């Protein structure tokens, strides 16, 4: 049985900066790897080594300049995320792929509970059912109940990061992409995040994380990929 979920083949990303004499920069040069179902791959390397760029090429926030990214999808079968049409990518994001960015960017004046429930609302889950799950995640992430109705815009950096992670985990995607998931978290909260990653894996999720924090995430990763 082929258990590969994602195959990244010779992916290159070049940015052409039209505003600065059209110069080009290539943070990702011919990178290849594959990830099996329920694995956790940790990508590490110094700042500027292209870690986040790879993650964004997989999620299609960036258009890869070369190579293929084969995803074994439930909706479409084996599909190349580099060339897939936009509707397919949107559907995959809704149903199968989650992404947690380094920074939370949300609409002001929307409560933390509604922010964490957003992916479920989008899927058409009933409000009450979604909020029940949302309360459980907020509680597991150590966000105190008196903050649940407040907007995360007013939260501390660590609290915002926890809301951001909760939003990525709540939809239980098949592939979860985490960009620096433990940055700006204290030791105890890092442990919560590691437990969340392990629990998601046990429930069938495949995880790719990008981080400097080998101490926290190294032990829970099955494989590591160093970028120079």
């Amino acid at each position, binding site marked *: 049985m082929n258990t590969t979920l994602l195959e990244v083949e010779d992916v290159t990303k070049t*940015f*052409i*900066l*039209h*505003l600065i004499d059209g110069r080009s920069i290539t943070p990702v040069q011919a990178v290849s790897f594959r990830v099996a179902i329920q694995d956790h791959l940790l990508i590490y390397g110094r700042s500027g080594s292209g870690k986040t760029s790879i993650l*964004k090429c997989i999620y*299609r*926030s*960036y*258009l890869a300049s070369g190579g293929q990214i084969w995803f074994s999808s439930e*909706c*479409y079968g084996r599909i190349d995320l580099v060339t897939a049409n*936009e*509707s397919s*990518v*949107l*559907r995959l994001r809704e149903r199968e792929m989650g992404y947690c960015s380094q920074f939370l*960017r949300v*609409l*002001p*004046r*929307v409560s933390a509970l509604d922010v964490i429930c957003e992916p479920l*609302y*989008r899927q*058409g889950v009933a409000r009450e059912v979604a909020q029940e799950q949302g309360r459980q995640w907020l509680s597991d992430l150590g966000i105190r109940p008196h903050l649940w109705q407040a907007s995360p815009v007013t939260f501390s950096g660590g609290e915002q990061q926890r809301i951001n992670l909760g939003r990525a985990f709540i939809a239980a995607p098949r592939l979860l992409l985490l960009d620096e998931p433990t940055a700006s978290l204290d030791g105890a909260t890092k442990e919560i995040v590691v437990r969340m990653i392990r629990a998601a894996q046990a429930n069938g999720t495949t995880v790719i994380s990008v981080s400097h924090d080998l101490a926290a995430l190294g032990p829970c990763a099955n494989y590591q990929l160093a970028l120079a």
Partner: protein
Amino acid sequence: MTTTSLLHVADLHKRYGPGCAACAELTGPSQGRSQCPRCGTVYACVAANFSLQTGEVLGIVGESGSGKSTLLQMVNLSIAADQGQIWYHEPGGSAPVDLLRMDAYAARRFRNDRLGIVHQRPELGLNMHFSVGGNVAEKLLLAEWRHVGRIRGRTSELKLQTELPPERIDDEPYTFSGGMLQRVQIAKALASRPSLLLLDEVTSGLDLSVQARVLDLIRRIQWEEQITMLLVSHDLGVIRQLARRTIVMKNGHIIEAGLTDQIMEDPQHPYTQLLVSSAL
């Protein structure tokens, strides 16, 4: 698995003026102008092509004068296109129809029943001397609703959905604040349960706190009803919050289209790079 296009816009053109042999060379994004310096013709929209899937929110972004509102008004059938097709495929319906080839009666009926529009300026969308209930009822009467009980019932639903205070339902819109007026416009636009909602700079001119509440309302309605929306804004923040895909216009042309986050984070066209890097 296939997704169905609700709307397919093909080769849509709108110009104001006679045109001349030099127009094509002297106008457009590469020239940085929409108006031909020889003959004075303004090219508001040139060869626009895009599709809108059922349940999708598509953003149109660009600077003032880029042609985004013209494009929206052509879809609303309130500005006549010079050339092109707008194919509309009713969900669950049979063959697509070209909206630009309908007779005047069919076009009016289509606009009243299947489309809803929210304007930047409420006085364009509302009769300021009808009550809130009267404005909603007006749209329903135009959509050929005739049962008073059903009209009343629908008005009450919309009042709840758009969070309009019940005690103000008989007030005239000119007594309302800017944010409240947009809620009334949204209620009116949604009244006939249209399949396509057009939003033209709906939060421009509102103060920031009200803007966030109106955007949240639009987003919730979209999630709950899965209504298809075409959203015009010059504000990248608004587009980012609401639209899943975005097209970028400049000097009447669509210069770039893509997933909204890709347009914001990895813009390809020099103008889009400038636009994104200039956002606050």
